[in-house]
């Protein structure tokens, strides 16, 4: 959970209990072939929450204190939301209201149905019977696996930090190792991630080094979840609204945060305006558009991270610039803040882009490119060398 969402929730009076947060994260390590660098949180506090979704890793159900989803459901139930534990298998229309079918044939119709079924359920894959204008979002396959290492080993090898890998491997965008309680979560983002991509990544020395004894342990479980990378056509209709991943979502990072924002935008529309397609168009669509626009800018941002991935001299410059900034503890600027926000999803991509176009940023990067590569030729190492 991103820093910005943690802050947002806290200011709304929702403080995540320590049972829900598997680990507070205060920094991240950026690993590249040219070296690694630790980027601290701006205020040196634990502002990122490592949480488990659903039941947590396979086999952890008994030991999991409280999963994030369960916490949220209980929070909703405490606000007098009726939680029905049943699998929804169809969303149709009955007379003048949307109707859902669940639990093997039971039906119920409502004044409004908010669809938050994500992109990993089959429910909406082939569109929605009740709203022909809706199309399923464009998706990309990612990879997530869990390793059971135990708290002590995790503290020793990964610490209170997320580890980001920017490696020049085919089809890999980036990968991350996130410590959560007794487990470490591996997230791999890229283009049609499959076992080949994962294997190549797990074979990389930069990744192996992060595991105790340089050995990748057995996975407790893994899956290939889909990510929303292209918005659906018309995420609303009369009495229907799509939120979360099956609606408009932020590209790659801060999915929970973006789901929360979109859900609030939809709820505001319903509470203050109405449930017709017109109401959503007037009051929900603008928030969708803002998000979509920011995602367009995100593509530019990720194009530049791809460039960093591909070009070794650029990696040297980035590494030198970041480690120099990090050496100066009072300052958190330029490359540190840009990288922080890209990989933690704490700020809109627009902000990231604006900051990276700052003359100071460009000047500093230029200088570090020259100095870093000259230094490398002279055998000098920056950051925690390879």
């Amino acid at each position: 959970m991103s820093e910005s969402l943690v802050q947002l929730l806290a200011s709304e009076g929702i403080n995540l209990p320590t049972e829900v947060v598997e680990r507070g994260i205060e920094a991240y390590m950026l690993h590249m072939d040219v070296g690694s660098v630790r980027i601290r949180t701006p205020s040196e506090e634990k502002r990122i929450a490592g949480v488990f979704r659903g039941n947590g890793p396979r086999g952890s159900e008994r030991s999991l204190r409280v999963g994030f989803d369960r916490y949220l459901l209980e929070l909703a139930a405490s606000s007098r939301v009726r939680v029905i534990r049943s699998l929804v298998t169809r969303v149709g229309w009955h007379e003048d209201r949307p109707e859902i079918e669940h639990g093997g044939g039971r039906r119920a119709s409502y004044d409004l149905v908010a669809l938050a079924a994500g992109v990993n359920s089959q429910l909406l894959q082939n569109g929605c019977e009740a709203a022909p204008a809706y199309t399923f979002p464009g998706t990309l396959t990612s990879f997530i696996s869990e390793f059971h290492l135990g708290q002590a080993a995790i503290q020793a090898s990964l610490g209170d930090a997320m580890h980001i890998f920017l490696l020049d491997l085919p089809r890999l965008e980036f990968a991350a190792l996130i410590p959560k309680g007794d487990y470490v979560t591996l997230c791999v983002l890229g283009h049609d991630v499959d076992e080949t991509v994962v294997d190549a990544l797990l074979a990389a020395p930069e990744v192996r080094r992060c595991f105790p004894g340089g050995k990748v342990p057995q996975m407790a479980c893994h899956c290939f979840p889909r990510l929303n990378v292209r918005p659906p056509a018309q995420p609303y209709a009369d009495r229907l609204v799509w939120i979360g991943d099956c609606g408009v979502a932020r590209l790659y990072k801060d999915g929970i945060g973006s789901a929360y924002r979109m859900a609030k935008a939809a709820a505001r529309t319903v509470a203050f305006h109405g449930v017709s397609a017109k109401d959503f168009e007037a009051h929900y669509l603008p928030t969708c558009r803002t998000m979509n626009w920011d995602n367009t800018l995100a593509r530019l941002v990720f194009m530049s991270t791809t460039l960093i991935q591909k070009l070794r001299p650029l990696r040297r410059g980035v590494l030198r610039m970041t480690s120099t900034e990090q050496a100066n503890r009072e300052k958190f600027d330029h490359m540190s803040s840009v990288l922080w926000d890209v990989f933690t999803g704490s700020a809109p991509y627009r902000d990231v882009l604006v900051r990276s176009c700052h003359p100071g940023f460009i000047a500093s990067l230029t200088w570090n490119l020259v100095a870093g590569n000259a230094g490398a030729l002279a055998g000098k190492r920056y950051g925690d060398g390879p």
Partner: protein
Amino acid sequence: MTEGALGKTYSSGELIVRQGDEGNCMYVVQAGELEVVREEHDGNVRVALMNAGDIFGEMSIFERELRSATVRALGEARVLSVDKKTFLRRIQEDPPLAFNLVKIMSHRIRRLTEDLATLKAKTSPPAPRANGQERRSGRDRRHGGGRRSGVDRRASAAGRGRNA
């Protein structure tokens, strides 16, 4: 302070904010107890105690004034900061987000009004209807009177319960 903790951990006596400093964030107490101290010419006055869930320092989100009091940890405490920039941007996007803060601030104004009345009652001859106020101020004195005034005290039933 477990691995599942968010925010920054402060040891006993450590300052979180200092009166007169510039502020660019507000704080949410995650665990432990904090005291709010106002530095006056004739010494320090504790104006409030804060516990988990309480918010303070929110005034600097909305105005450019300096911090109005010092906040320090009483025993080990954990506090999460909320950036002014992040928060203000989100309020633009989602105005009801400010509602919680407005509620807290409104509650504080209500308490300040009560405190003001109490102070006035002490310094001027008692008005015929001031008996209730008298009793209340008396009780406050018995309990050290430390918890009333308005430095960023969040309305919390738990807080009130402890006070009574």
